Structures are given as C-alpha cells and as structure tokens.
C-alpha cells in the first residue's frame, strides 16, 4: 500500500512539475529576463546530464570523454545526431576493449 502511495505521489508531483510552466505560460507574455534564461535551458540541461553521467560512471569516463569529443565534432560537421553515434559508439567500445 505504501509502495502504491509513493508511486502515485511521485507520478502526480512529476506531472504537476511538467505542467506548471508549460501550461501556466500559455498565451502569456514572458518577461525578457525569463525568456533569455529559457533560451539556454537546452545547453544547461545537456551539461548537467553529462556531468551526472560522469559521476555515476566514473570507471567509463575516460573513453567516453574521448569518444564524446569525437561525437561532438562529427555532429558539428554534419549537423546530424546519427553521425555522433556512428563515430562515437564504436570508438568507446574499442577504447574499452583496449583497457582505457
């Protein structure tokens, strides 16, 4: 029973978080200072998620850092996210095999 209550509380709370600004700001003018922060939520999220990954996977961090840099260059050159995976994934696996 407690387990269900925890799940429902998290589900309801998470939905409220998701809806809050997405629906709350519908049809409303957003002040310039807030809009300029929203402009860079994407890069902020990517940086934060990457760091969280590194903290959770310290042992795989070196090969991932090398392949991540290659993936970055591949995506920037081609403008294609698939190129990042095609360039980066085999490289990580190879580096891991080599014991990096």
């Amino acid at each position, binding site marked *: 029973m407690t387990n269900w209550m*925890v799940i429902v509380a998290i589900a309801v709370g998470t939905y409220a*978080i998701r809806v809050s600004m997405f629906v709350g700001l519908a049809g409303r003018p957003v002040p310039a*200072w807030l809009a*300029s922060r929203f402009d*860079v939520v994407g890069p902020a999220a990517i940086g934060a998620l990457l760091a969280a990954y590194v903290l959770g996977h310290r042992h795989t961090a070196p090969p991932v850092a090398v392949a991540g840099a290659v993936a970055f*260059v591949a995506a920037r050159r081609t403008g294609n996210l698939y190129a990042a995976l095609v360039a980066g*994934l085999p490289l990580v696996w190879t580096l891991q095999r080599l014991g990096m």
Partner: protein
Amino acid sequence: MIAVAFTRTRSATRDAAVAGVRAVAPMAVALVPFGLAIGATIADSSLDPWPNWTASFLVFAGSAQFAMVDMVSRGEAPVMVVLTALLINLRFAAYGGSMARWFGGTSRRCRAALAFTLVDQTYLATANDAAKSVRTPAERVAFFVGSSTYIGLIWIGSQTVGLVAGASLPSSLDLGVAAPISLCGLLASSAKTTRAVEVAVVSAAVVLLGSPLIGPGALVVAIAAATSIGSTKKGEES
C-alpha cells in the same frame, strides 16, 4: 483545391511526426539498457513487481524511478523517496517554460496532454528542431507526439522485458554509453553561441561540485544557476 490543401496539411503533419521519431531515436538507444536494468532490479528486489512497473508510464522518468525503486527496496522513509524523486524531476519545469513559446497557438488542454511525456529526450529533440525548422502548431504537436510515442514504446517495452525475463544485455556491448555520446552530439547543435557554451560548462561544473552537497537537487540548481549567465537582468528591457 481544398482537398489538395487538406492532403498537403495531413502529409506535412505526418512528416513532422516522422521527424520527431527520427530526432529522438539516437537518444532512445541508451534507454534500452536502462529500462532493462530497472525492470531486472524490480524483479530481483522484494518489491511488488507490477505497481513498480506501472511507474514506467505513470512517472515516465528514468532517473527518478530508479532512485525510487532503490530507496523503497532499502526501506527508506516514503516521504524522503517522494522528495528525492521530485527533486530529480524538478528540471522538467524549466523544460516546460522553455517549450512554451514553441507551442504558441496550442490550447491549454493540448499542452496538458503533451506534458505527460515531457522528458530530457523529448525536450532536447524539440529544442533542436525548433532552432532549425519553422512549423505550424499542428506540426509541432505532431513532432512532439512522434518523439514521445517512440520513446514511450522503447522505455515501457524494455522495462517489461527486464521485469519478465530479468534480462540484461551482454556486458560486451555497453549501450548505456550511447547516453553521453548522444548528449555530446546534441551539444554540438545546441551550443552554437559563446553564451550557450559557457552555460553548458557552468551547469556541468555545478553538478560535479554540487552533487556531494545537494545530491538529487544538483540538476535543477545547475540549470537555474547556469541559465542566469549572460541573461537579461530582471527589470532591464532587451
């Protein structure tokens, strides 16, 4: 003439949905081992499997669900479990705020429905798309629904397989690394200004330094702190 216009609109909407699937698919690769691992963890724990499986779609957020399963199975206080999961998910509020302007002309009811599947992958795919393509409101919605459907199927499917079969992928093929690799690829298209690069670096630094102190709150604190860099100040007109 009307029929032609109608057909064109329909196919443009379908194209947008397909674009949504294609945009999110590289990020979905990393969800397979994650979903399998959560499913297998639930199966291996003393927890009631099916309620915890429903969290795959009721909560629809991997890191929070993983923290929940872990904490509940270790017997942590329910209030702490809920607070931890919500802190991890608090970043979705920033995603919602950032997405709001790309969905102009979309009703509140429609937004409320779309919000169910607002996660890292669907937000980042939409942000990437909004930066480079002009779309009608219907096409934006179709793009988001396409991304969400694909992510949802992969996510719920992999958790189900993990729960039923206790399966995990062979360790020789670490698909989990697709998560940081695709994030690095996304960064290439997302961080095209000096300010955006600075924001990404500062955000990463806040998580690295702040996690030992504030734990699950680090993600949202990092996003809140980093986005203030170079932003228009409060009360200042741009």
